[in-house]
């Protein structure tokens, strides 16, 4: 069938199962926006290309399917760079289609030309510049394949205007079904199965360990291995810490769950890792926010490291057993290998370890003091009420900073794929667009965006997208009038010399702003108003809602491992010292 490249691109997206595209048209991508009109694909018109990127990420996190974004050349592409880098750091499968100036004009400094593939080289898993219309189905298929297999990540496909413009003869092509056998990727061989000998060696280490901890990372979620993780943890009766990227992969309510480790992890999770004699790292990458000062991290622990990406094995901490493979398969094999060793009965005696852990849990729970009448709200309190007044499978997104840490600490994540945040890149402004993407992907689920006032001001315009596209997300906006985490660091490490962190409680007026964007908005200032406001927000399902919680500026996130210090020097809440 004869087609033009633009039609072929849209049809290929349909073949790849893309039901939603987040995007914003412009000159170079214009020809592709014409066949979009006839396509069953839902296009969500964003207000800024960064928003399209975070929406695609939110969609991918929530559904497990690749998020698709489509934007124009030049500034369209550069605006998306932050989101692409975010997806790269957090291994989120995203396919980004960018328009490009006509092939013959590339390199001439044409209007809205930029070297998109050059700029995005280091923030994508791979990128393509398509030069012939005939290649479009194959290359777009390759892009989806690369984005979703192995360690997932963003893939960008840059498409010159002439090969998609029906008025240009270079756009002529003959349609063919994009299939795996047409792919030309001789250098791409994602790992799957782990080496059985190494699995056996890992099983032996596990059985002999007296103080083991499972260190579960975001790779568990990417591998869709939550069920396998529960099976392994229960079989070997070993406590599990879930990193910021892994929250929800193991139920917080499970008796073996220790919660989040790291810089703002809880005391027990941090200290159990520090004191362990075996870390079973599954799909985790020993991020500096988890390890603290590296030479002081878990000094007595042997390490089993399972990851699909060989470059993670030994990158930070030299493992005793390194298994390259898909977490779902390797954990399944580990379960079998431990069973073959005799299973639970043959494990080392861990009674003392268990009582040590429960001692820490009793002594150092997460704490905060409720506000006195007339004082501003405590964010921790608001999050507890929000958690207890929403369905268990509510999807929570977050920006970056104090509110993010409190959300991760105080929420109870009992289901995988209910927590969506920017972990690796730490992108302020992630929350609102990510929530929109998640809600589009999972329309029957309640989606709450937890956000700070600094973050909100970076991407709030996407609430216009949410209103006009009828995507009823809910925003819990913590307005403490500060760039709170930076303020906390200045208080703790810069002798309270506050520099450029004050934002104001009053300007902008968040309620008016949200209303202007088509949202229902409420300001909440007292503890007794919190639950009723949330109840009201939960009833609204035809438009976005913004609840502005006026929060205490001086509240700090604890525990905290100061940057560059050992996890053994964890600073607990002042009331626990």
């Amino acid at each position, binding site marked *: 069938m004869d087609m033009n490249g633009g039609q072929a691109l849209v049809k290929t997206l349909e073949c790849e199962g893309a039901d939603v595209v987040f995007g914003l048209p412009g000159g170079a991508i214009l020809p592709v926006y014409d066949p979009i009109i006839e396509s069953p694909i839902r296009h969500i018109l964003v207000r800024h290309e960064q928003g399209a990127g975070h929406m695609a990420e939110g969609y991918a996190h929530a559904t497990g399917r690749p998020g698709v974004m489509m934007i124009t050349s030049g500034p369209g592409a550069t605006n998306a760079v932050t989101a692409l880098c975010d997806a790269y750091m957090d291994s989120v499968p995203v396919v980004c289609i960018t328009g490009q100036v006509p092939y013959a004009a590339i390199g001439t400094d044409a209007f809205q030309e930029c070297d998109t593939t050059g700029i995005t080289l280091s923030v994508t898993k791979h990128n393509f510049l398509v030069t012939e219309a005939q290649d479009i189905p194959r290359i777009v298929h390759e892009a989806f394949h690369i984005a979703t297999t192995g360690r997932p990540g963003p893939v960008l496909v840059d498409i010159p205007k002439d090969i998609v413009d029906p008025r240009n003869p270079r756009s002529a092509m003959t349609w063919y079904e994009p299939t795996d056998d047409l792919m030309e990727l*001789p*250098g791409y061989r994602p790992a799957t199965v782990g080496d059985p000998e190494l699995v056996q060696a890992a099983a032996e280490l596990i059985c002999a360990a007296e103080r083991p901890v499972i260190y579960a990372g975001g790779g568990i979620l990417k591998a869709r291995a939550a069920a396998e993780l529960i099976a392994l943890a229960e079989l070997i009766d070993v406590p599990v810490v879930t990193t910021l990227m892994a929250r929800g992969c193991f139920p917080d309510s499970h008796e073996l769950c220790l919660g989040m480790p790291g810089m703002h992890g809880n005391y027990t999770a941090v200290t159990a890792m520090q004191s362990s004699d075996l870390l079973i790292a599954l799909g985790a990458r020993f991020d500096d926010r988890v390890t603290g000062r590296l030479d002081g991290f878990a000094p007595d622990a042997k390490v089993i490291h399972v990851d699909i990406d060989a*470059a993670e094995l030994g990158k930070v901490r030299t493992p005793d057993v390194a298994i390259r493979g898909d977490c779902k398969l390797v954990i399944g094999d580990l379960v079998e290998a431990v069973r073959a060793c005799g299973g639970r009965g043959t494990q080392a005696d861990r009674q003392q370890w268990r009582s040590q852990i429960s001692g820490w849990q009793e002594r150092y729970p997460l704490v905060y003091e409720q506000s006195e009448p007339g004082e501003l709200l405590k964010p921790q309190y608001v999050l507890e009420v929000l958690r207890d007044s929403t369905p268990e499978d509510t999807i929570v997104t977050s920006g970056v900073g104090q509110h993010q840490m409190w959300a991760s600490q105080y929420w109870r994540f009992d289901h995988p794929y209910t927590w969506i945040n920017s972990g690796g890149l730490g992108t302020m402004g992630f929350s609102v667009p990510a929530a929109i993407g998640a809600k589009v992907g999972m329309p029957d689920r309640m989606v709450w965006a937890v956000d700070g006032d600094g973050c909100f001001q970076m991407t709030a315009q996407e609430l216009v997208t949410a209103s006009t596209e009828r995507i009823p997300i809910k925003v819990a906006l913590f307005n403490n009038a500060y760039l709170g985490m930076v303020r906390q660091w200045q208080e703790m490490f810069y002798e309270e010399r506050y520099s450029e962190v004050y934002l104001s409680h009053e300007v902008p007026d968040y309620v008016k702003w949200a209303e202007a964007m088509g949202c229902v908005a409420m300001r909440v200032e007292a503890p007794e108003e919190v639950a009723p406001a949330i109840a009201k927000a939960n009833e609204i399902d035809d438009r976005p809602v913004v609840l502005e919680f006026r929060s205490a500026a001086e509240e700090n996130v604890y525990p905290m491992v100061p940057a560059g210090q050992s996890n053994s020097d964890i600073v607990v809440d002042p009331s626990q010292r």
Partner: protein
Amino acid sequence: MSSPAVSDAVQFHTIVTTVENKPGVLARVAGLFARRGFNIESLAVAPTADERFSRITFTVDVASAPLDQVVKQLDKLINVVEISELSPTESVERELMLVTVAVDSGERRHELLELIDDFRAYVLDADQSQMMLSLAARPNRLDEFEERLRAFGIVQLQRTGRVALRLLGL
């Protein structure tokens, strides 16, 4: 053949990659080195016998631990098909030098011709006052030749960067 000697005090590693012969692939590979802060000491790129692929030979000066990380990162590049590290003891390395040397007297010319003979270099061009030479040899042999030529006065010099193949039977 004499066993190849390690030519320098610093530890050089030769990495040979087979890559897809496509635009931009060299930039991806070289960019990865740059982002990790590695200086590429020498670089040679050309298509292989199969024109769909090119071979890129790098020499880098690095400690072995970060090198392992770079090799793994290189392997992640979609366009990199194969990657291997070649040690001097298990491979042959060759490099080509083109050099123009000043020769200001008949006596000097005679000395230079002896040197050319010793090193098995070739004379490509000559006039009253200069000679252009070529030498393809082990990189340390080129270093020695270059050193000896300094006495005559080097007018122009260009080296290609080394290429390497694994020795037979290894």
